[in-house]
């Protein structure tokens, strides 16, 4: 039997209508958990819950709204009696591949609102139940937390911040018999990742990174890693699992990799191109007026 048995537990997952969130919800449900599927769109959240089957509920809530997250937890408790597991998974990729100089401030800040404050609101709303029931919280960071975030800095900044939140949270929950994990995903074949690679400027990623780094895993594999992590109350969950070793070596590798990026002509060209593209967009959008 696992250290923490999901059978009979109640789980709430944000960003669960699709991708990793949905897969985690589905697999927890298979193990006997009741699940609250939280997502922005009411119809999508309900459809996803119905596809999973009984012992589910679909709830529409925006993670940037602390009140809506408290209401989502209240609705879950109302329906299933309590809450044991929460996964703060909802996240947003930067809408454009751009430098800090050229990105729109609104766009950058929105990514931080969803990816950092959204996790915070989810954690805060779930904590009273989780700590009382000695449950478990998963915050979804990313391998981006320790990668160089050039041209996607809002994402790396928010994911690095979430990692620190998850570490502190775990330490603070242990005295109560509850736990927390930080989940790190590499490239998973979700709509978020597909959309990212469809954006202008994204091809440089595929050019400069070694093939094994770019290989995508399925949302099923990512979800399975999370479920296993919860059952083991693991402090860290990596999918693909070999990212664990890159994380362990990050303090040594990052200064070297950063230094190499500074001189890599493909990166230099990509940054110049991203700035030129933003400049062109700004000019175009100014023209109609």
């Amino acid at each position, binding site marked *: 039997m696992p250290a923490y048995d999901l059978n009979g537990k109640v789980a709430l997952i944000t960003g669960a209508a699709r991708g990793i969130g949905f897969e985690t919800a589905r697999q927890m449900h298979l193990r006997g958990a009741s699940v609250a599927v939280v997502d922005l769109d009411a119809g999508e959240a309900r459809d996803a819950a119905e596809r999973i089957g009984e012992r589910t509920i679909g709830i529409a809530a925006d993670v940037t709204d602390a009140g809506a997250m408290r209401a989502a937890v209240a609705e879950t408790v109302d329906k299933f009696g309590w809450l044991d597991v929460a996964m703060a998974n909802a996240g947003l990729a930067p809408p454009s591949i751009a430098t800090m*100089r050229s990105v729109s401030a609104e766009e950058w800040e929105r990514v931080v609102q969803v990816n950092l404050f959204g996790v915070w609101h989810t954690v805060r709303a779930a904590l009273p139940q989780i700590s009382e029931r000695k449950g478990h919280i998963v915050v979804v960071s990313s391998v981006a937390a320790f990668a160089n975030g050039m041209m996607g*800095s809002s994402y790396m900044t928010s994911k690095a911040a979430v990692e620190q939140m998850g570490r502190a949270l775990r330490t603070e929950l242990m005295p109560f018999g509850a736990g927390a994990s930080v989940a790190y995903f590499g490239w998973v074949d979700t709509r978020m990742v597909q959309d990212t690679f469809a954006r202008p400027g994204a091809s440089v990623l595929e050019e400069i990174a070694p093939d094994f780094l770019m290989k995508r895993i399925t949302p099923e594999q990512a979800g399975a890693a999370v479920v296993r992590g919860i059952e083991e109350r693991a402090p860290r969950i990596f999918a693909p699992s070999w990212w664990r070793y890159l994380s362990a070596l990050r303090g040594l590798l990052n200064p070297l990799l950063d230094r190499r990026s500074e001189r890599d002509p493909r990166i230099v060209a990509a940054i110049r191109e991203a700035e030129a593209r933003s400049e062109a967009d700004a000019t175009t959008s100014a023209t109609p007026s």
Partner: protein
Amino acid sequence: MPAYDVNGKVALITGGARGIGYETARQLHQRGASVALLDVDADEVREAAERLGERAIGIAADVTDAGALRAAVAETVEQFGGLDIAMANAGIAPPTTTTIRMVSAEEWERVIDINLLGVWNTVRAALPQVAERKGHIVVVSSAYAIANGMLSSAYAVAKSGVEALGRSLRTELMPLGASAGVAYFGWVDTKLVRDAFAKPGTDRLEKNAPAFLMKRITPAEAGASVVRGIEERSPRTFAPKWWRYISAMRGLLNPLFDKRADSDPRVRDAILEAEALSQASTNDAPAASR
């Protein structure tokens, strides 16, 4: 001669009225830079600028206000003709040493607004000038970007975000001939740190941590490390210096430290005590209003 000579350059420093910000400004000024000190209190920041003498101005600006920072950059450019160096240094310590469960949401979010989004606002306001003039930006992170943030999570969360922001910024600026560096400080004897240690719950930290970890350096030493970093366009500066080695080993050490913290009775007591303190002050607050 250093790789980047600060003589004749113009520098803007947030949180410049005191502590590490003031000391960095003083030392840049000594090397011939003109400096714009920014801080929230108008009187304090003007006094600080006056202490430095000529080639220094004090500007009242709140880093959570993007417009105020753009105005401060404009004022600096008007006064000195340009802007070469920016140091996003303003920051606050969490007002209460407590858990994510017990902290007031307002307090937690305010630390992120100042320490993370304040850095973002400063960087954005300074970038057009700094990029054009092939200058340098320093973002102030902390050893807390590396250490476990228990009982001070907002600080650790923000500083870790700042580190990621600074790394990306450097890579994005290098093709333009400009640069950026991340500054990491351990305990520096500033008002921020003294206030933090005067708070209930924090004294435990001093009792539990090894003495070398708790030894404080002076703001002058911290400032000197930043100035050296600017002159060398360093990607990272550490003060005290040995944090560099902890940073290098963090991927290996942190899982071990975190695991130890999970089962350390002193950590457990500190967390339980902090929660009890917060609980007591929550109970007090409604009582006072009766």
